[in-house]
Structures are given as C-alpha cells and as structure tokens.
C-alpha cells in the first residue's frame, strides 16, 4: 500500500469516500467553507463518557448530541473527529483545531468540551474559546452506610475510588499529608469505579459530577452525590465550551448564537438529562 493511500484511509471517513468527495484538509474553515462543504467537522474526546463514547459501536454522548444539533441548526451534515487526549488541553487544541496532529488526519472545524476561562484563552491565542455550555465541578458519591458525611476531610478509614491520572486522584494522594494515600483505589474509568462502589469494594468515588452521575444512573438514589471542593487546589468549578481556530471567528459567532438558543430553549438541559447528568447553567455575570 502506498503512503498516499494509507494517508487517505487515515484521514477521510468512509462516508466521505463513499460520497466521492475529496474534502480539503488544509485548515479549519470559516463559516462559508462549512456551508459550501455542507458538513461540520467536530472534534470530540475519545472514550470520555458521558460526553463522547461508544455504546454498542455507536458514538454517543452529551457532546456528540449537542454537536449534531448545532450542525442541524447550521443546516449542514456532521462528521466527528475522535481525539485522543494529550498531556494538556493546549495540546488538544493544537491537534484538533489549529494545526492537526503530526500523524495526519487534519483538523476539525470546532472542538467540543474545551475549558472556557480567560487566562487559559490568553495562553492559547491560536484558538478562540466560546459558548460555554456547562459548569463542571467535582463531586463525591458515597455509600451512606459506610460514609455518613459527604466531606473529604471527614473521610472515614475506608477505600475511595478514583479515575487513574485524574484530578481527584492527584488531590487525594497528596491531601492531608498523604493520610488517604493507601486507601485510594485506582480505576481506568469512572463506570468501573462506580461498579466497585456498588459491589462494596470502595465506600466512595470522587470524580466530576457529570462523570459520577452518568455512571450511577438509577443507582444515584442509593449512593448520594454531593459537590466537593479540593482545598489548596485552585477553584473546584470551571466552565466547558467550544473552540475554533483563530481565523474562524465567523463560525464561532454563528455557532455561539446557536448554542445560546439551545441553552435558552432547554435543549442543552434535555441532552444532559438524557445521559443522567444535571445541567449546571452558567450564571450570567
């Protein structure tokens, strides 16, 4: 197989090939190009439940559904670009919207699930951050029989589950002089941690509220979920929005208007609800 063929297979979706279209991959395209192409290419994280993940072979999730609705409102089709998370979101912005990964595959028109914060935006001038749609925070899900109070400082002598390499992981390993270190149990995903909570392997799970609520589903009535703060570790809540390349502001304005309308008419809250997650609206300042 020649390199050219291999690159095409890497880069283009089967649908694009079937349609006989050879899409341009040079850069994120402003609004006119998206409209002319009739398709919006959206970057979502790989394996990031409940926002973007595979269920029975189909890509689903809050971000996936929201992106589809955005494309519908723009009057174009949708194509997803699944993104493997890098060391930091700055790497992800480079790979997803303004440069592309050095392995190839091109860039997307917009990226979902990008932190929306002024300081972070200033440090990433190659991208435009816009349209925050969720306020995230950390939460504790507990077995109320074993852990009577939803407070980290009052964690009893019981094992607590976290997602490996997550912020709660780092926090609990170091918190209170390392007092909890030997009781932190690591899981590859939060659904696995929640399964361990149900089986009694751990007495609590610490993760983002979206992760833990979605993983619990109906079981939330047995395992109450409470927001928690991590003392000494910056703010415990932040906002999630979208990003485009800095040359695509017109696309950002159009998509921003759509997101505002979707927030207004309750569509966003509905999508979150569909995955068992509370939608936390961002207060207007």
């Amino acid at each position: 197989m020649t390199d050219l063929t291999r690159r095409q297979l890497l880069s283009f979706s089967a649908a694009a090939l079937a349609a006989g279209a050879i899409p341009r991959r040079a850069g994120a395209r402003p609004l006119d190009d998206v409209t002319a192409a009739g398709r919006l290419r959206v970057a979502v994280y790989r394996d990031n439940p409940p926002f973007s993940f595979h269920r029975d072979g189909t890509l689903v999730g809050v971000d996936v559904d929201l992106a589809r609705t955005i494309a519908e409102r723009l009057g174009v089709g949708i194509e997803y670009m699944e993104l493997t998370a890098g060391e930091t979101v700055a790497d992800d912005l480079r790979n997803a919207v303004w440069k592309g990964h050095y392995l190839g595959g091109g860039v997307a028109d917009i990226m979902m699930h990008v932190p929306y914060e002024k300081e972070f935006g200033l440090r990433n001038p190659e991208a435009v951050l816009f349209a925050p749609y969720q306020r995230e925070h950390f939460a504790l899900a507990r077995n109320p029989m074993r852990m009577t109070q939803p407070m980290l400082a009052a964690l009893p002598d019981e094992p607590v589950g976290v997602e490996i390499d997550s912020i709660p992981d780092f926090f609990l390993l170091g918190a209170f002089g390392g007092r909890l270190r030997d009781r932190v149990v690591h899981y590859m995903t939060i659904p696995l941690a929640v399964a361990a909570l149900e089986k009694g392997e751990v007495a609590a799970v610490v993760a983002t509220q979206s992760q833990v609520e979605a993983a619990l589903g109906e079981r939330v009535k047995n395992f109450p979920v409470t927001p928690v703060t991590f003392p000494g570790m910056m703010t415990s809540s932040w906002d999630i929005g979208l990003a485009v390349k800095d040359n695509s502001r017109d696309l950002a304005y159009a998509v921003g208007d759509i997101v505002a309308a979707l927030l207004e008419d309750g569509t966003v809250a509905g999508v979150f609800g569909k995955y068992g997650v509370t939608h936390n609206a961002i207060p207007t300042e």
Partner: protein
Amino acid sequence: MKRLFRTCLLASAMAAGLGLSTLGLSTAAGAAEGPSNDDLLNDAKSTGDVLTYGMGLQAQRFSPLDKLTPDTVKGLIPVWSFSFGGEKQRGQEAQPIVHDGTIYVTGSYSRLYAVDAKTGQKKWQYDHRLPEGIMPCCDVVNRGAAIYKDKVYFATLDARLVALNKDTGKVVWSKKIADYQAGFSATAAPLIVDGKIITGNSGGEFGVVGAVEARDAETGELIWTRPTVEGNMGTLNGKESTMTGKLNASWSGDLYKTGGGATWLGGTYDPETKMLFFGTGNPAPWNSHLRPGDNLYTSSTLAIDPANGEIKWHYQTTPHDGWDFDGVNELVSFDLKKDGQVIKAGAKADRNGFFYVLDRTNGKLINASPFVTKITWAKEIDLKTGRPVYVDENRPGAPEAAEKGKSVFAAPAFLGAKNWMPMAYSPATDLFYVPANEWGMDIWNEPITYKKGAAYLGAGFTIKPLYNDYIGALRAIDPKTGKIVWEYKNPAPLWGGVLTTAGNLVFTGTPEGYLKAFDAKSGKEVWHFNTGSGVVGSPVTWEQDGEQYVAVVSGWGGAVPLWGGDVAKLVKDINQGGSLWVFKLPKA
C-alpha cells in the same frame, strides 16, 4: 553468486588477520536460511555483516575493521543514497542491519525496507498500516529491525511486533504486544536471544506498568513476561511465575498497579553472564510527592534471565525519580581493566547525568561520575551505598504546596544528559564515546491548567541550553576513572548513535546534517559529509568485496522538535528528510 560473495568476505577477513571461527563458517553456509543464533552471538566479531542492534548483543558498537583510519578516512565517499519515499518524513532513528548483501532498514511511520547493499536497489518495502488514534509520545520513529533465520522483525507504532520473510517482505506473523488505544507504542529494535524475541513496551500516558516480554521467534507465541514494578506478577508459559520484588515494599496503596517503568528503549544481552539488561522508565504519577518510597524498579537497570524472565539483580540510578529522568539507557557490557584485574563490567550513561560502571555479574556499583557539566538534583553518587546524595531543595515541589509562580531550574533537562541515542565502547582505546547534551529546564507551577476538559494545578517545563555556543557534546570517557578524555562540541543537541572502529575512528551524526568521523584517541574531527537532513540514526560499518562500508540514515526529527522548548526554536529551520546513505573506502 551469494556463495562467491561470502567467500570473498571470509578471505578478506582472514587477510585482515581476524581469524576464522567456526561461527563465521556457519554464516557462509547459512546465507539462504539467514543468520543462526551463533551468528547473532558472534556479530561483534564478524565483519561482513551487521546482524544485531548494537553491532553485537553487548551493544558495544565496535567494529574490528581497520581499513578506515584517521589517515584513510578522507577517501570515504558516498556510493549511493536510498530515499524512504512517501510524503511524510520526520525522525529517522534507525540502525541498519546488513546481511548477505542486503540492508534492512526501518523508517518513520513503521516502514521497513530491504535494499541491495551494493547498488541501493530496493528489493522490497513493507508499510505497516497504522490505525487512527495512535498517540506516540515522541515522534513516529523506529530504531531498527532484528534478523534471525529467514525472518526480519520490527516493532510498530501501534504496539505490534511484525515478522516478515527476509527475502520477500511478506508478513509471517504479526502480534499485538500492547494496546495502542491505551496509549502504548513500540519503537525500539527487538533483541533475539536463543530463539526468543525479547521486547520492552513504550508509551502509555497512564495505567501502564513496564514489562519485558519474550516470544518464540518462530511463532510469536508469548513465553514469559516480567513486569518492572514491584508487586506485579510475571508469567512463564501462560502461568503466573513470580512477583516482581515485594508487594508494597517501595510503593503506597495500589499505585504499583500503574507505576510506570516502561522499557521503551529495549535491552542488551551479555552472552558471558547470560543476562539480559533492560533499563526502565520513570515512575508514575509524575509528582514524586504523591508516591513516597524508592518506587522500585523504575529508573533502574534490571538483569534478567532470558530462559524464564527472573530478575537476577537490579540497580536503581534514580530512586524516587521526580525529574522524569527515566533509567532506560542501555547497559553496555565490557571488560574493565583495572588494577591488573579484568572485571566483567557494564556501563550506563544515564539520563540523570551520571556515568555508571557496574559489576555486571551482581549489579554492584564500581564507579559513578558526571558526564555533563551541570547536575542540580544530586551532589554525587555514594560509592558505598550506590545511592545518589540528593540536593533536596532542588526536587520539584508538589504543585498544590508550592509557591505560585515560583520557577525552579533543574539540570539535566527531562530529555536527559543522554537520551535514547546509544553510546559506543572501544576495546582498542578502552574508552566509551557518549553523545551528551548540555541543557536544563525551568519548572514552574502553572496557576491553572486543563486535561481532557478538567482543571488542575499543573507543572510547566521548558528546556533551555546551558551554553550559548553548544548543546551537544560527544565525550570520550575513561571507565576506569570516569574522566573525560576528549570532547567534541556541537551547536545543536546530539540525537544520533555512535560507532567506533579498530581503525581508531568514532562516527556520529549531527542535526545539522553531518555524518562525522573523529580520531578515537584525540577527538580530532577527521571527516564529515552532509547528508541533506539531520542525522539522528546510528551508523554501522561492515566489509563487502574487500572494501569497508559505512551506512547511516538521515532525517531530522525525534523528541527535540516536539519537546525541546527553547531548543526546539534553535533547530526549527532544519529540513526533514528520509534516506539511507552508504559510503565506502574504495580499493586503492
């Protein structure tokens, strides 16, 4: 034709007074079947081929050839150059393999080529089909192939091991060695010992434990695995064998299950002690304050029995690594001639900046000395205890405890005083030739950073050169004393392997594009040739039709342009490439 060619080689080897071993004869008879295990064991001595990564399983990268000398090297001329083709280039870090008139060389993006050694004519090419979603940490490099009997082998970026027929390039078997979707990758050259193909693992952002694994070279079936982190269980013939170390002896809680220690650079083998030597990577998580203890056996060298995967000894170069130093660098076996004795020793130039000489029969430290000018993390290595004397105040702080905005300077930088690029040892000069880099890093706590859409306090790094006029330094080190005998300074960081010969020469490449030759005793530069792109591969030499050949791949890339901070800016104008250059000293 093949037989005639071989006969010529043997005749010239005899003429050169190198002796004719029975092992050499078996190579001649076995050209069609490919190299035997004995041929691999004899690779350091045989001059008509290059059968192993390291030019011998001990990885001395020393050739007994002596036609090329500081005097004759000016006659070394290019014979042909072979382009890797394709529209993607990036880093070419391979060492060629030469067997029976064919050069087997790997290229970026998991490609393998068989090329006629005389003419540069391509015989076949294998392009591995890479899936979407691979995330190699440090460029799309590959460090070389292995050859055994009728097959050539190489590892791919999607963490597979592929065996191909050496004559046709057709896939014989292809085995998954790790899950690329979990972030694993494979770039090292495989090692073949007693019919087993032995590999490490690489990549894995998290959830990874390093391992060394042995497979049947014929079938690819797994024989044994040896995890590198204490508390994890090894396997032998499909059953649990023994636990690595002791559970929770140097790790808290369940952190050993995800403790790091990846063996991404592969290993070496010493036929005299019958031990494999594998270096292990840094522990996880990065913040050392979260994992008190030595975190065995990360940032270490492990001696492993190739028969069953049992650990014979370990030596940890950076206990409780908090700098991302790794301990993956190769251990090179050699005879240390000291105080009238010959000690079976091994040397390792560690990323942490110290050059270690160990007794390779038991892992005891004999000597450790700095091979770069600035080391901030430790004062010295205590020769009695074998442990570093830390400079505690220079350990990077815990992000949540540290003063906001405070920046700490640490040297060496996390790319290491020496990174992946292999050194060479000459039994003729009794010197090691180490490709080093003089750089440090600023580490600071970022006010806020994000990972996969979640916020946290992170650390930022940027690599900085220590000096204005050079970063790279090729250094000749006397293993008896640790003294630096000579050095060659290079403006850009050195990122290629080293070769030395009985003809009193040392070869290495530079990112500026040159393959250079130095007088092995004095360090005087005696020859150079610009290959058109940066040289970050490992050169080899062999004899063919009575003439001495040298080959090296050219193609700038690797981790420096991706992770090099300020240094990346210095080298951003170097053009990429992808080619194999072959040189020879024509008959007078």
